[in-house]
């Protein structure tokens, strides 16, 4: 007797479409807006100013600051969580497109609420701890992973002034706190008391600490070019126009960009480097024994990391939030002397956040494309790529950059020449790529692109 | 010597941080050739060897020339370049630095050494390229090392460095004379040079020790009694308590100079001005004020040390600017020439007075010092008793003869005496002996030169004789003229030696003048340069030798203060003059004799050649390589030494070596590297005369005298004689040269005259004695060597019979005891030993449990120890 599937609805009720659309646009925008609003406001100096303006006793300063810290932390955690949810949806949609299928399309418009549905499902599942597992460690491991992920948001910039703390060791901080993720993975692999999980954990750790080296060294390239470790400082050393980005300003930086991007993919366990959770070999790697909420936490981190890695690469190489033709100093000047900044300042901050988000999301999309395009590599290939190619390349780039900076100090013109040259090449490649895509789509679907199955 | 009418002040030092480069380049060259030379040679890059060596020399010369230019731009009284690298060692208050200094005298020496050294290196490229010893690199390494040592000797700022260089040149000369060490005779010649030099060095060292012994007394006296102008420093008497050099330096006594000691023209140079306000003129005008305590001395010292950051031990003449008021000289132990000179020369220190008064066993200390130092000079500069090594040293390759035995090493003695002029000038006796020995050597060596047939031997004795002249110069006190003769001699003797080298090369390694003759046809350049050098040495007024020699002899004649045995001997000056004139005549004679025998008449070579060379070891070594004499003209096996060495040079060598095997090859002119050097040297031999045109001609002091006067400050009195008389004496000098020339002309021109042979027959006895160098070598053999050998044989016999017997007897007794002992050992001791062993084993077995191999146990132990220490620290107050 055939199972009775309910047929897909012919048309969604208008209300649902509207609500879905509103939510789909609203949830990310809500959080981005909150980020925009709260990060500058919750600075200690601003809090002080607000308190004194409101005539509140200065002894409330400390509690207010602590409260602000908590609010910001909550905000950032939730931003990461929401974004990773949205991107799971986006990934599944893109996968569907690439595999010529539809993808999730039931929950909400275009299946947007699938991630909420997933979350609900996960929360409702039983929280299993295997019988022989080390319960404490098994339970603790996901939190390490989440902590390592969440701590990066402390320094990730969103816009001109939109950053929780602009640590002067920002980049260094990012690379170091992500180490916690490795610890969590290792512990989870061990505590599961399962071969698959252990192999997955060991593989993940080996992979991550190996790829930390090319990543760390290639990060030196923008650091050397900017002369600072601060994320905002690095962005401010770049400019809004493509030839002012680090990636084009220096031939070695172009290579370092690819090295860093590849290494970050591997560190985030993204395909083609998703060996620790290779289904065909290890069931689900270190995740094998996890279920329910803890599993959800791992997945949250996994997809949230896409944002993190894209944001890091954007910051270091792609000019960050820099708006073309508007200098950061100009925006600084708009702030005014008041406790709260002027409206124009807010406006430009919003624009800068839009620029940063656009660049980052474009990179996230690239990451997803890569996942559904490339096959998984073998362990020896993965290690060989790291130690034989990326590490030497990263070192070569670093050394080249040192000489390049010397040359720049003599002849500043070469940065511009390199920038414009590489920009032109990049534009030409992008145009060729777009034409090729267009031709491919035409070959399959003709002139009309069908969006009906959304 | 009319200068220095005022009291002398301390030397003003100019710092020149690059001076160390001058000796560095030859050292590097030597190192490179020692380390890589044989590889260059083996890998066919033989020319790299001489590129390195000559390059090093050229760089060295250029650096020296730079220093010269710098010195020229300084005012005369400030011409003292100094460069301290680092402290070598300190012993008590004596600090010895690795420091270089150049005053006008050593500047002149350095220029000679580097310039002529470079030329000789260049010459050697042509001369040694195909040498039989197959050790091109070794030759150049030695040569460079020699130049390095010589530069160290000349530029060293203190006695230690000078002595280092002094021994270094001895070593290098040994290595170079015994260059063909496969030949026993030549190796023996090297050894002889070395041993004879040791005798001299012994004298040198003895002189130094005596000097410092005497100075020690002087220093101690100046410390404890204090002269009229000496200021007692409070800490002086507890010198032993001063732990290090810097601390003891602060305690060093200083002597302030009286005001009149200041030549007012000396401005205070920037960077050297000591805090003059400390020494208010009013305070120091009266000598009584000098008894004031030394507060102002120490700040001055600090100022100086802080300002130029040199090793503090050398900031002695601390107030260098305006050294009248408040200028100070540290009095105390030093090995530094400049400091010693300051202490001795500046009257206020009282050192000179004290030295003059000291006597050893009834002999004036300074005379002994001077004589002992002169013994050292004798060895190095081949003076009368110790000259014997020099003629034998001709065993080395000709460039060596030129470099070592003409231009540089042999002048070390002269240089040393001139350097220490302030010591010698204090003792007329020492000067008298120096002059006397110099005179005797000049005459003696000249007479030996009369009958030598070996061209290099002639030159060697001529060198000895000329060195005698130099010692006359420095002996009678006309130091600049001695140095001037050194300079001119360096040029013309190097030219002569290299000319003879060219001749020897041209005549296929023939050195016997009887087998030469008529070479002017074949070797025009060599001939002309040789002739010019002959003119120079013979004292014809168109060449430099005349001026230096006449100045020396004139001053010798006018000197009146010389003494022997402590008593004034005013007759000594004129006597020296007459002997010197005789020697000059002889010089002229034998030099022109060698010229005529070599270059005029018909070529007598090519007969019996092969036979002689068959006996010549290095010829026989070379012979197999040149079995086919005709094959070398076109297909020469060796690579091109230098592009410009050219076909001519090759051709010449082809012929030269072909000559060993076959007969009848004609002599040939040498390659350009050789002739160029000859021409330059000959030009120098002429042009040097400009430096020494006598005051009687020009009305002012000779250029060189002006140049050297800051360095040669010793005051020696001379009798004033009218200029007219000087002209007469110059004419006499020219006449002496002319007489020698005429005799040589008559007897040896074109080698036609039968008179020489007849004279030889007639005075065969005299001839034999002179020809055999007065049997001096045999005398040495009899007096020194045989007794030594006999003594050593006697000792050997004593050792073999008496000592051995004693030893054997002791052995037998010991064996007896040992037998008894062995019995006791076997029965008593072994038991004890076994017991000990058992105890040890058991103890070890027990103690082994302590070593658990567990880190924790050890940790507990370590912690227990640490805590125990802390507790003890609390418990024991």
């Amino acid at each position: 007797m055939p199972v009775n599937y309910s047929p897909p609805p012919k048309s969604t009720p208008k209300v649902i479409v509207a609500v879905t659309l509103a939510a789909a646009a609203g949830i990310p925008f809500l959080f981005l807006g909150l980020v925009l609003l709260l990060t500058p406001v919750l600075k200690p100096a601003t809090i002080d100013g607000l308190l004194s303006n409101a005539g509140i006793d200065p002894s409330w300063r400390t509690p207010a600051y602590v409260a602000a810290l908590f609010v910001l932390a909550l905000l950032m955690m939730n931003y990461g969580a929401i974004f990773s949810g949205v991107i799971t949806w986006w990934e599944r949609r893109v996968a569907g497109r690439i595999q010529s299928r539809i993808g999730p399309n039931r929950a909400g418009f275009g299946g947007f609420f699938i991630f909420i549905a997933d979350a609900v499902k996960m929360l409702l599942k039983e929280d299993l701890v295997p019988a022989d597992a080390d319960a404490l460690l098994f339970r603790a491991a996901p939190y390490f992973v989440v902590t390592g992920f969440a701590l990066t948001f402390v320094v990730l910039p969103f816009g001109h002034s939109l950053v929780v703390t602009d640590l002067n060791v920002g980049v260094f901080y990012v690379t170091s706190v992500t180490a916690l993720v490795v610890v969590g993975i290792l512990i989870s692999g061990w505590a599961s008391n399962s071969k698959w999980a252990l192999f997955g954990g060991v593989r993940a750790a080996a992979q991550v600490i190996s790829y930390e080296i090319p990543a760390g060294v290639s990060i030196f390239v923008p650091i050397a070019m900017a002369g600072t470790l601060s994320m905002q400082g690095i962005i401010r050393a770049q400019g809004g126009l493509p030839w002012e980005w680090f990636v084009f300003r220096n031939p070695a930086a172009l290579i370092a960009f690819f090295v860093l991007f590849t290494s970050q993919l591997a560190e985030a366990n993204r395909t083609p480097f998703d060996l620790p959770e290779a289904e065909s070999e290890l069931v689900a790697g270190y995740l094998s024994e996890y279920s329910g909420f803890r599993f959800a936490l791992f997945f949250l981190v996994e997809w949230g990391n896409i944002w993190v890695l894209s944001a890091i690469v954007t910051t270091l190489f792609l000019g960050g939030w820099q708006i073309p033709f508007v200098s950061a100093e100009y925006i600084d000047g708009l702030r005014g002397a008041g406790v709260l900044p002027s409206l124009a300042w807010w406006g430009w901050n919003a624009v800068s956040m839009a620029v940063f988000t656009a660049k980052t999301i474009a990179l996230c999309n690239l990451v997803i494309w890569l996942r559904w395009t490339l096959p998984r590599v073998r362990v020896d290939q993965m290690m060989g790529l790291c130690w034989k190619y990326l590490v030497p390349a990263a070192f070569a780039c670093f050394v080249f950059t040192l000489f390049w900076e010397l040359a720049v100090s003599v002849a500043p013109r070469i940065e511009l020449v390199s920038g414009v040259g590489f920009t032109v090449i990049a534009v030409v490649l992008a145009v060729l790529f777009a034409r090729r895509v267009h031709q491919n789509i035409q070959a399959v679907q003709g002139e009309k692109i069908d969006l009906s199955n959304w | 010597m009319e200068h220095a009418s005022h009291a002398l002040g301390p030397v003003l030092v100019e710092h020149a941080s690059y001076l160390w480069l001058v000796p560095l380049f030859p050292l590097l060259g030597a190192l490179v050739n020692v380390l890589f030379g044989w590889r260059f040679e083996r890998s066919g890059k033989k020319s790299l060897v001489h590129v390195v060596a000559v390059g090093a020399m050229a760089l060295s010369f250029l650096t020296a020339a730079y220093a010269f230019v710098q010195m020229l731009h300084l005012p005369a009284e400030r011409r003292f370049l100094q460069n301290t690298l680092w402290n070598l060692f300190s012993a008590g208050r004596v600090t010895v630095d690795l420091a270089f200094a150049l005053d006008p005298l050593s500047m002149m020496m350095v220029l000679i050494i580097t310039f002529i050294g470079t030329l000789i290196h260049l010459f050697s490229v042509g001369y040694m390229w195909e040498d039989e010893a197959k050790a091109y690199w070794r030759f150049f390494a030695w040569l460079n090392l020699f130049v390095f040592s010589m530069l160290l000797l000349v530029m060293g700022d203190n006695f230690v460095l000078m002595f280092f260089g002094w021994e270094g040149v001895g070593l290098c000369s040994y290595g170079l004379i015994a260059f063909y060490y496969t030949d026993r005779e030549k190796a023996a010649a090297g050894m002889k040079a070395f041993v004879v030099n040791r005798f001299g060095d012994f004298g040198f060292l003895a002189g130094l020790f005596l000097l410092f012994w005497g100075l020690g007394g002087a220093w101690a006296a100046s410390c404890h009694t204090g002269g009229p102008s000496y200021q007692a420093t409070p800490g002086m008497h507890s010198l032993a308590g001063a732990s290090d050099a810097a601390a003891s330096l602060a305690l060093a006594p200083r002597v302030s100079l009286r005001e009149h000691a200041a030549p007012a023209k000396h401005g205070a140079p920037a960077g050297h001005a000591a805090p003059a306000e400390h020494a208010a003129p009013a305070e120091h005008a009266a000598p009584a004020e000098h008894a004031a305590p030394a507060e102002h001395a120490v700040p001055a010292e600090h100022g100086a040390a802080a300002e130029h950051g040199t090793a503090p031990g050398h900031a002695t003449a601390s107030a260098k600017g305006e050294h009248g008021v408040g200028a100070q000289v540290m009095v105390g132990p030093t090995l530094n020439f400049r400091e010693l000179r300051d202490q001795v020369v500046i009257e206020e220190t009282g050192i000179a007075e004290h030295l003059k008064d000291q006597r050893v066993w009834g002999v004036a200390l300074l005379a002994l010092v001077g004589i002992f130092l002169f013994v050292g000079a004798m060895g190095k500069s081949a003076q009368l008793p110790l000259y014997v090594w020099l003629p034998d040293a001709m065993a080395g390759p000709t460039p060596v003869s030129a470099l070592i035995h003409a231009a540089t090493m042999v002048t070390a003695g002269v240089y040393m005496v001139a350097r220490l002029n302030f010591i010698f000038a204090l003792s007329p006796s020492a000067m008298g002996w120096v002059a006397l020995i110099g005179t005797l050597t000049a005459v003696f060596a000249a007479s030996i030169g009369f009958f030598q047939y070996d061209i290099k031997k002639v030159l060697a004795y001529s060198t000895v004789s000329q060195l005698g002249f130099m010692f006359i110069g420095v002996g009678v006190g006309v130091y600049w003229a001695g140095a001037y003769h050194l300079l001119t001699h360096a040029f013309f003797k190097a030219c002569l030696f290299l000319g003879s080298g060219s001749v020897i090369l041209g005549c296929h390694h023939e050195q016997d003048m009887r087998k030469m003759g008529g070479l002017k046809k074949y070797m025009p350049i060599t001939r002309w340069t040789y002739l010019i050098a002959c003119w120079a040495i013979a004292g014809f007024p168109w060449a430099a030798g005349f001026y230096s020699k006449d100045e020396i002899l004139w001053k010798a004649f006018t000197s009146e203060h010389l003494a022997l045995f402590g008593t004034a001997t005013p007759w000594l000056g004129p006597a020296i003059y007459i002997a010197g004139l005789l020697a000059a005549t002889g010089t002229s004679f034998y030099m022109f004799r060698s010229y005529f025998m070599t270059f005029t008449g018909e070529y007598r070579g090519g007969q019996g050649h092969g036979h002689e060379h068959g006996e010549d070891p290095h010829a026989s070594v070379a012979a197999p390589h040149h079995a086919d004499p005709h094959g070398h003209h076109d297909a020469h096996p060796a690579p091109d030494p230098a592009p410009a060495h050219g076909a001519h040079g090759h051709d010449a060598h082809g012929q030269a070596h072909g000559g060993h095997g076959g007969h009848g090859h004609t002599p040939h002119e040498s390659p350009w590297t050789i002739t160029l050097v000859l021409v330059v040297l000959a030009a120098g031999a002429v042009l040097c005369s400009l430096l020494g045109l006598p005051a009687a001609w020009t009305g002012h002091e000779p250029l060189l005298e002006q140049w050297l006067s800051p360095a040669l400050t010793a005051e020696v009195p001379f009798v004033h004689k009218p200029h007219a008389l000087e002209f007469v004496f110059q004419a006499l000098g020219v006449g002496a040269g002319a007489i020698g020339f005429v005799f040589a002309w008559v007897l040896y021109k074109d080698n036609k005259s039968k008179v020489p042979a007849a004279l030889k027959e007639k005075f065969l006895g005299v001839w034999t004695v002179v020809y055999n160098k007065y049997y001096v070598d045999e005398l040495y053999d009899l007096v020194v060597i045989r007794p030594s050998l006999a003594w050593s044989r006697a000792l050997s016999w004593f050792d073999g019979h008496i000592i051995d017997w004693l030893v054997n007897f002791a052995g037998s007794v010991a064996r007896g005891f040992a037998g008894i002992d062995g019995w006791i050992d076997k029965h008593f001791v072994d038991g004890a030993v076994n017991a000990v062993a058992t105890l040890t084993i058991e103890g070890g077995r027990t103690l082994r449990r302590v070593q658990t191999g567990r880190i924790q146990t050890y940790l507990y132990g370590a912690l227990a120890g640490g805590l125990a220490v802390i507790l003890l620290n609390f418990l024991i107050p």
Partner: protein
Amino acid sequence: MLHVGLQHFLVVGALLFSLGLLTVATRRNAIGVLMGVELILNGANVNFVAFNHYVTGGVSGQVFALFVIVLAAAEAAVGLAIVLAIFQTFRSIDVRLADTMRE
């Protein structure tokens, strides 16, 4: 005394050091011993940085702490490699078993 000052950090360093010492002294597991060493080094580092901050100023103490961190990393790498080698030889990493040199 209550506001955080030099002594507070020194006490923390001392406690870290002592606990590290305890670990080194009592652990049988070689890896545990290594962890104890890390604690000891951290205790020393806290003192370095605290003295740097409160006594000397400048960055010398931090530089030394960095050297210690570098050397600790090196020590950990070599130590763990040795532990692996010991494990391959003795099939255990109990430090009490690795005493074949004892007799």
